[in-house]
């Protein structure tokens, strides 16, 4: 195999594409092959083992989970470098022809969870319209398109919105650990939440043609389509570069890529590719990844990351 193989998150995909292209242009080496498989799907292939049959790099729109790390280890993929690339806002958006909403995480939980608390009891989600949740919300059917479980965006959404939202419900908080997790994390499957696949752009296009639907995807897609889409404000803040960078927009998440160190020195160009990907021109402030919607790291943090990437420092096992 002459080419570097990159898999993973659809959110990181554009960044990997950009780095891969730059790498090929700069070095004249064969162009890396980048496939978009979703964070979880990517992890699964990445951790499948060491050898030319397995990819070298995987992108992730959330940190590697312990379970995934264990999968890797059990398949002999023990030496992994974790590279924190930067941040991405998680946005919920609607067509410009649609109705802008300002939602709280609690309301989002109520709209999207499988079971919700009504009068202190956990019941199957009864809300069909936004106005069922709060009369001040519009009287339209809830219709939200989002990614499937293989997607890091989905994990991040669950973690940053659903988990937070469900904290507002005493009865759920009172549940034991497993039941609590179950209640907080399970998305509803009765229609209002639509698993729309890994293709964020298809969600965008559907939103354009369907002004009553809302979509969940990475901020970069919103950024590219801001003339057609408007963000949903969450807790009163709409996502934009400033609000994400300064942290006032709460639903942003770190994005990563992972390098299989056993492949360094074996797969031609892998080291150079990682160097390119982590260079200042790429992930630094004003780098070309920023143009694609990445919110860059602070300088000191970046230096650390760059060093780890260069030295092939192995990541520790993630905490639970």
């Amino acid at each position, binding site marked *: 195999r002459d080419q570097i193989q990159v898999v993973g998150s659809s959110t990181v995909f554009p960044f990997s594409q950009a780095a891969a292209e730059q790498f090929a242009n700069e070095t004249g080496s064969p162009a890396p092959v980048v496939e978009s498989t979703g964070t979880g799907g990517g992890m699964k292939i990445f951790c499948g083992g060491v050898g030319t049959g397995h990819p070298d790099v995987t992108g992730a729109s959330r940190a590697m989970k312990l379970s995934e790390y264990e999968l890797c280890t059990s398949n002999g993929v023990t030496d992994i470098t974790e590279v924190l690339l930067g941040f991405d806002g998680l946005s919920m958006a609607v067509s410009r022809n649609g109705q802008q909403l300002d939602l709280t995480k609690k309301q989002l939980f109520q709209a999207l969870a499988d079971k919700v608390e009504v009068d202190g009891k956990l019941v199957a989600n009864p809300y069909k319209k936004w106005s069922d949740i709060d009369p001040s919300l519009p009287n339209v059917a809830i219709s939200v398109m989002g990614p499937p479980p293989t997607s890091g965006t989905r994990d991040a959404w669950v973690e940053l919105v659903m988990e937070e939202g469900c904290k507002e419900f005493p009865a759920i908080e009172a549940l034991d650990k497993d039941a609590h997790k179950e209640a907080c994390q*399970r998305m509803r499957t009765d229609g209002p939440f639509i*698993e729309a696949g890994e293709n964020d752009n298809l969600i965008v296009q559907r939103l354009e043609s*369907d002004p009553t639907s809302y979509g969940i995807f990475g901020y970069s897609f919103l950024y590219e389509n801001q003339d057609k889409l408007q963000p949903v404000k969450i807790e009163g803040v709409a996502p934009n570069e400033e609000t994400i960078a300064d942290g006032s927009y709460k639903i942003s998440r770190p994005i990563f890529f992972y390098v299989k160190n056993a492949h360094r020195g074996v797969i031609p160009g892998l080291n150079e590719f990682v160097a390119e990907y982590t260079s200042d021109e790429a992930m630094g402030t004003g780098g070309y990844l920023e143009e694609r919607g990445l919110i860059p790291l602070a300088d000191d943090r970046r230096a650390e990351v760059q060093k780890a990437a260069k030295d092939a420092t192995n990541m520790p096992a993630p905490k639970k």
Partner: protein
Amino acid sequence: MSAITLLLIVLTLSAFGYLWGRGRAGTLKRAGAGLHSIPAYHGYFVALSCGLPAFLIVLTWIAAETSVIDQIVLAGLPAYITEGIEASRISLILSEIKSVAAGRIFGTPDPAIIEAAERYNSLQNIASLAMVVCTLAAAIAGMVFARSRLSPEFRARNRVDGILRWLLIISSILAILTTLGIILSLVIESIAFFSRVPVLSFLFGMEWSPQTAIRADQVASAGAFGAVPVFWGTIFISAIAMFVALPVGLFSAIYLVEYADTRVRSVVKPLLEILAGIPTIVYGFFAILTVAPMIREFGTSLGLDVASNSALAAGGVMGIMIIPFISSFADDAISAVPQSLRDGAYALGATKAETIRQVLLPAALPGIVGGVLLAVSRAIGETMIVVMAAGLMAKLTLNPLEGVTTITVQIVTLLIGDTEFDSPKTLAAFGLGLVLFLSTLALNIVALQVVKRYRERYE
């Protein structure tokens, strides 16, 4: 020497063999012997005896070389490198050896690796030399042997015909192998799937949510593999497609065969056929970007609630794609109704419409039904349109304005990117594939029987 050059050399040798054999036969003939076969066939015989075995050797060699050399190189590695290492690591070591062998050295490789790389290179050289030697030896041996068999009584033509016949047979077997391959690859994975999910609960279960948690600590869908809603979605969308395609296809066929003059027909027919030639991914775009919003707008203006990925949009567009299947089959079937039946009806004073409705259509019905069944199986198996335009949510609904999902959509979403073969989620795709294969098989067999019976009636 590359395999291509080698094959060219073998080709040249065969050409030479042809001339040699033909020349020999010519000599025999001039010597007054009555040849059984003409000299050219003696030539062909020598050429085939020379080229075929050599060609086979090259092919098998190419197929086997890599893994044989890999094994030898690995076997030669010192124990401390290969000891207790699982297979995937070994492939990595191999690829490192190959990198080094190709002169791409990173860092400082283990001396054993460098040595292995050298060995690899020399093996590679030996192997390619050996391939050349073996191939040429086989070619020449075949040629000489064949040449020695030539005689006036030698039935060269029958021999050559026999060899060619075997080549033809092997080709037809390839088509069978494809089916076997499909069935095997589906069945093996399906067995693995059905060992986790009982067949009955797959076939009759009402709940489909295969996007299971892919990690232990994730909460996703519980992993229900009841495929009824998926089957329903497939049937529903296909039905919508047929609802569009059947009348349009049938009426256009009727018009083209019975009413249109030849000029119109010669323009319209190829135009209609273009519809079947447009790649389905293009229809997919057409569905999501043009038709779905149109339906939605229209529905909303009527106060209806239309899903953005409605079954109607996907099915309707699929119907458009299928129109030519129906129209050309109906066209053939109606044209194939013997003129005598038309004459019979006209002679009784029937109008054109009466003749068509009451005589031609009933007579052509078996052919039309055959075409319709084929079109249905096309609709059931159609992928890209539904992948792009239909939903992912398995839903049992009769409302065409809601989204449904289909077998093919599920196969694609379950398989793209993620190629691990151990989770029921991935295996479910093969289970679905098997069902899909079997159902289109059944439809095709029925269609074939119908068409066949119909043919028998009129020939």
